[in-house]
């Protein structure tokens, strides 16, 4: 006995994943800059 059939919409997600990686890399760079700037 399983749950009801699901709504299986296959929206392309490639750009979203790329955006996640890009934003994460930017956040790491900002954190590195922030720590370096104020720790000197």
């Amino acid at each position, binding site marked *: 006995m399983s749950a009801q059939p699901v709504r*299986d919409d296959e929206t392309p997600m490639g750009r979203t*994943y790329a955006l996640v*990686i890009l934003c994460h890399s930017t956040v*790491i760079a900002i954190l590195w800059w922030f720590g370096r700037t*104020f*720790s000197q």
Partner: protein
Amino acid sequence: MRLLDWLVVAGYLIWIVVDGLRRTKAASQIEGYLLANRSLPWWAVGLSVMATQLSAITLVGTTGQAYADGMRFIQFYFGLPFAMVILSVTLVPFFYRSGVYTAYEYLERRFDVKTRTLASVLFLFGRSMSTGAIISAPAVILSIVFHWNLTLTILAIGGPTILYTMLGGVQAVTWTDVKQMAVVVGGLVCAVIALIFGLPHDIGLGQALHVAGAAGRLNTIDFHFDVRQTYTFWSGLIGGLFLHLSYFGCDQSQVQRYLTAKSLTQARHSLLMSAFVKIPLQVLVLMVGVFMFLFCVFNRPPMLFNTEYRDSVEQSARAADYHALESDFTRAYERRRDAATKMAAGADGDRDTARDEFRDATKAMQAIRGRATVLVKDVTGSASYGDKVGDTPKPDVNYVFPTFVTTRLPQGLVGLVIAAIFAAAMSATAGELSATATATVMDVYRRLVNRSATDAHYLLISRLAVGFWGIVACTVAHVAVQLGSLIEVVNRIGSIFYGSLLGVFVLALGFRRANGHGAFIGLLSGICAVVIFAFHPATKNVSYLWHNPLGVGVVVIVGMTVSLLTSPQHAA
């Protein structure tokens, strides 16, 4: 706490319980109760995912961690966004399309019932213990800081949570999580604003941050590769990746959240929301700790934050020694405050001299705190009091934020921040209760005990299971106080399962030849290997983040070896 604070906390509790109970109608069938009829929008599910992960001990402990040790804790989350992308591509579509109630149900379809049951039982054991710790930790802190009765504090957190989770199911859990996240973020933002306004008027924000940086509180990234360190770039990126893959991909408390989404795309978006928001949110939490440190640079902090230990020493025969240390601490603090003021205001040459003076005074304060720690250890016999986080005794770290809240925040705001601590504890607890009840009913009761009952019967059993696990959590929370460090060991064992569970799912999705025997023996082998690794004298200092890749590796190697040596008919 004054009347207005009590009103804010009481108002929050009433609001959450009423809101949770409003969802009871939508939970009249088993799929509505456990999966919200797969009807929830991605943003609500995404907030619920984050609320389940952010417990009160994360809120209180992480702010204390940043106060004592700076922002390097943020590196723990560096693997999270990558984990979310990998899960969105791999496990999420498998879970969502197969129409399962639990992550472990999928293991029976791919392997066999024994693998499913073992995975589910491991989850239930680990989670029942950790839910107790989720309630116990803030209850102990609040009861000491406010002199509240511990049992009543545990019941104030656990009681309303059990009530709305039991009656409203996952709908109630998700929608109350949304509101609880708003309370948590609101409380944190107000705390940061109050802390910034608490700085001296002649010191700008940039100057203050330079002072925090001089004390090492803004060191965010450490590129050294050292497997013994948890908070480095590589431990966070690689070890954290495996940990978050395991937590968000194999832990029913998270899987159940995104199974409630309206569609596969919305389920993916709900996970990716954490990839975007989790690190900024955690930066906000850590900045509270950094600003508390800055506040304590310009306002004398207590030498020890844990009032229970402090009172024990002050009432002992060593009280005079303690008071002498207090005087030394005050002199060192004044030296540090003056150096910080000069550093913030001075020209370049003066600033360098003042920075050296500031660091010397900080070291002097650390040394005095160290002597006070030894004194506490001698008087109370507390073995763990010698451990430190940064420059602060470990048992003190969790008391930094509550001490600041109760002594420095204005009326009303104290109530809001206490409500935020309650919200964090309740949202994490509700998610765990709903997930443990689902695993109990779907993986154990319906699969092994009674396979042909009515929908109404399973709904009743689900509600009873929430109540049962709620009572277990409150009992464990109460006993945890007496068990002390033993509960840490139990929690450590719970976290040991994660990597091995992930290994089974890797076998399921990545190796067509893997069969049920291989998965079952691989899972047991992975757990044994990680337990030996975690407690063996030669390897026990390796950060727990590295246990997860180890568990995955052992499960895959042993699982495939056994699969190749046994009949392929077990393969799906």
